[in-house]
């Protein structure tokens, strides 16, 4: 349908959309009621996954199912999505911020010759134009941007937008547009899985625990992981801890690491340098525990305890356990 708001589906590589799609679809529905369509490039979509997109509020799913779409390659996805966009003339193309969507929609915007607003945290229709708001300069300022023409292409920061509530029984019309399988220059060699911590992924987690220089060494992160298991939180680290070699880079929160926006952030022994704040400042509730009452993180914390984290963490784990067992 022309003028639709496309939501590019991020999936779990096993045929199901990730839950961040409820946020993208929810926001699209607020901006363009009745014009929300999901566009899914995948090697295999599950029936349950298609049903889920309908329940979240997509009125139509454009399913591009082809073995060539996995693993993701920007050149292949771009060619297919651009062909489809030429046929469908969407008003907007929205995707969640993930490693691949950041690249894909940027490349797609170049192919379509339109602007891109990455990592947006707010949208508004002003007249007949979309205006996006996005953090810039290490999150110190917000930039409002708009497009010269549509489709308006944007990525959405996870955990910021209110997710659509699933409406059981609501279904989307699933269409499988015929597209020739695009050729690829890149050849897939292998995937190397990370050693699983058993904890949620940093950018997706609703609760994130972060350990900074105050952790004193890599061996002490076990106490944060134990707390993480109790409350279902991801465990990240500050740049100081990563640069000291205590944690791999993929756990870094901040300007040169992951940007997170959880419902609850708990920082232990984190000073709150600007580059760290850049990656977590849009968290909803911020808790800081630090021995130093002057630590800058207390300036943005909702709750602070000035104490030794090695006393606080075990106590907190115990109290949360009690609470959650109730």
């Amino acid at each position, binding site marked *: 349908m022309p003028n639709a708001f496309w939501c590019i589906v991020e999936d779990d590589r096993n045929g199901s959309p990730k839950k961040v799609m409820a946020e993208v679809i929810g926001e699209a529905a607020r901006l363009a009621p009745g014009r929300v369509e999901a566009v899914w490039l995948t090697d295999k979509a599950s029936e349950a996954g298609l049903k889920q997109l309908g329940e979240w509020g997509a009125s139509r799913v454009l399913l591009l199912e082809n073995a060539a779409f996995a693993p993701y390659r*920007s050149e292949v996805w771009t060619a297919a999505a651009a062909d489809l966009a030429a046929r469908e003339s969407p008003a907007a193309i929205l995707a969640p911020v993930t490693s691949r969507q*950041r690249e894909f929609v*940027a490349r797609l*915007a170049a192919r379509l010759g339109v602007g891109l607003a990455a990592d947006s945290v707010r949208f508004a229709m002003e007249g007949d134009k979309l205006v996006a708001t996005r953090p810039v*300069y290490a999150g*110190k300022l917000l930039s409002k941007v708009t497009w010269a023409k549509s489709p308006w292409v944007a990525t959405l920061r996870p955990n910021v937008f209110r997710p659509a509530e699933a409406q059981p029984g609501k279904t989307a019309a699933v269409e499988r547009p015929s597209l020739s399988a695009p050729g690829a220059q890149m050849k897939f*060699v292998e995937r190397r899985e990370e050693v699983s911590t058993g904890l949620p992924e940093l950018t997706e987690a609703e609760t994130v625990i972060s350990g900074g220089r105050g952790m004193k060494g890599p061996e002490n992160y076990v106490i944060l992981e134990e707390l993480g298991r109790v409350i279902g939180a991801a465990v990240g680290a500050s740049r100081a801890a990563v640069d000291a070699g205590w944690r791999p*880079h993929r756990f870094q929160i901040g300007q040169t690491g992951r940007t997170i926006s959880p419902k609850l952030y708990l920082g232990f022994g984190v000073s709150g340098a600007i580059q760290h704040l850049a990656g977590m400042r849009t968290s909803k*509730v911020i808790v800081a525990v630090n021995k130093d009452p002057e630590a800058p993180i207390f300036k943005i914390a909702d709750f602070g305890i000035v104490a030794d984290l090695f006393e606080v963490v075990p106590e907190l784990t115990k109290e949360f356990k009690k609470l959650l067992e109730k």
Partner: protein
Amino acid sequence: MKILVTIKQVPDTATQVKIAADGKSIDTAGITWIVSPYDEFAVEEALRIKEKRGQGEVVAVSLGPDRVKEALRSCLAMGCDRAIHLNDAAWSAADTLATAKALAAVVKQEAPQLVLCGRQAIDDDMGAVTAQLAELLGWPCAYWIMEETIDTDGKAVRAARQVEGGLEVFDLPLPAVLAAQKGLNEPRYPTLKGIMGAKKKEIRDVKAADLGIAAEPSQLSVVGLEALPPRPPGRIIQGDVPTAVKELVRALREDAKAI
């Protein structure tokens, strides 16, 4: 092998930024400028490829006003052979696509086998130019790379990109575009000899007309900059550790409803 590295000059993270009188840009008075950290990973990787192969040329390219020369000079001090400065008022409001178009025109002139970029610039955090450059060139592209190896005959590169949950490894025929992620390498500091030598290296000024690019309005434009909405004042929970922790858990549950 000729390698082109794209870099951007950005305000140092710790620098205070203030909104300028136009309400759309920042007041540049008193700002300390640096090469965006991800771009330093790209420069370092290019230098390592050249050193490993024992031959080649590394060309640093940047778009921006006169001050950008300083950033290019520091790349030359690290070891880049020469630099190209896209310096034209026509690009003063360039969005990622306009920037990518200018860079693509330079790439066509220079014909490198590899383009290395940083994952994103830490001022506007768009992270788009690399992908858009690859698209305009029709080249394959790997984002957020953590390692790369170029085959001995210089025909292909094997790159491992960081994705949620692991690394994905691909073979890309050259020419190709790669975006550097933190963890790819540890950038070197310029030596005194490097700094002295950089003064003699060429920084070529290029205007839009030199690239045959007609001025066109940006597809994405800034309507305005805003200060962050203030966070409500926080609360330091007093008392000994067991008491403070009990109160914190209660407050998170009952007041903030965060757990």
